[in-house]
């Protein structure tokens, strides 16, 4: 599946939210989209046969953050990369759980480690860090704390 073919097979109503479909090494293509139309893009991609969500990740580019989704198609035997940019002062995007239920824990992890909020997530709790953990440790602004300082700030009920 070439990027041009994929761009043609996406429904035309998505044109306002699609920012580009380009080649990307290791993937069939990289689809960039605006976060406002995230759920529509997820549904369209899922209808193309990409039924398995392999990974959700967050990247901190300091001036903005990026959410990436890796999806897999059993029919085309290929991965597809979806990505959207979110501003650093308002890092939120629509949850992919209605389309891919396996997004649940991936989004919890991206929320607690990179600080990206997923709207309408059914259960946005801490996954790897304790409840009440006050940091987003994979952000570039996170400083390595002295153990004692971390202990005081992390001590939970």
């Amino acid at each position: 599946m070439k990027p041009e073919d994929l761009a043609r097979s996406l429904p035309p109503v998505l044109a306002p939210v699609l920012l580009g479909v380009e080649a990307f090494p290791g993937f069939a293509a990289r689809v960039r989209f605006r976060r406002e139309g995230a759920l529509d893009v997820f549904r369209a991609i899922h209808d193309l046969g990409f039924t398995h969500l392999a990974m959700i990740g967050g990247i901190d580019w300091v001036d903005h953050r990026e959410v990436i989704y890796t999806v897999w198609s059993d029919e085309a035997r290929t991965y597809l990369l979806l990505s959207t940019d979110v501003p650093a002062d308002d890092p939120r995007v629509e949850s992919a759980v209605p389309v891919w239920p396996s997004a649940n824990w991936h989004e919890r992890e991206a929320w607690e480690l990179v600080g990206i909020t997923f709207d309408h997530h059914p259960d946005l709790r801490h996954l790897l860090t304790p409840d009440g953990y006050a940091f987003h440790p994979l952000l570039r602004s996170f400083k390595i704390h002295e153990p004692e300082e971390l202990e005081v700030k992390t001590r939970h009920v």
Partner: protein
Amino acid sequence: MTATPAAVAPPKNASKVESHRADAELPMAGEPAVPFLEIEALRAREFIPAAKEALTDLIAEQGQSKLIRPVFNWAGRNSLFPLHWGLACCAIEFAAAFGARWDAERFGVVPRSSPRQSDLMIVNGTVTWKVAHKLITLYEQMPEPKWVIAMGNCATGGGPFRTAYSVVPGVDKLVPVDVYIAGCPPRPEAMLDGILLLETLIRERKE
């Protein structure tokens, strides 16, 4: 094998660390001179008459309270039941110590699956803040008297992950630790060495 002692006691017992291997043969100061208490093992049919004779004399001489403590220490140090749980790669060495080659059951150490049946917690691996309150719950569920061994560098002081965002820098921040075992991971011999050190500490226990 002449390895350096891998297990160390807390600093307050520092003077006794050097000679804990040699202590086993020496009578402990302050321990009542009861013949059978210095014997580590007896046949069952020899034990009952020996214990009966020794106890009857001693109760008459010294009263009950002075007698109970060494008996409990003697029984407790020869039947340490660690909690059967693993946190990280040290748990593999923990499991190997109970295999055929090292056979920790020689020392009466039998892992139990319930904290209610355990009197020893071997913290074998990296303790994260996520698991910290579960570790404390398990510790509080264990009946008294109970002991804790911090096995490996991670449980002792956080190890290479000491400054990580999710790691408790030493399990002694959560529960009191009796014996620290160094190593990453410690070999089963080192774990057995730590258990033997703990047995000498229990032998000196007064209250």
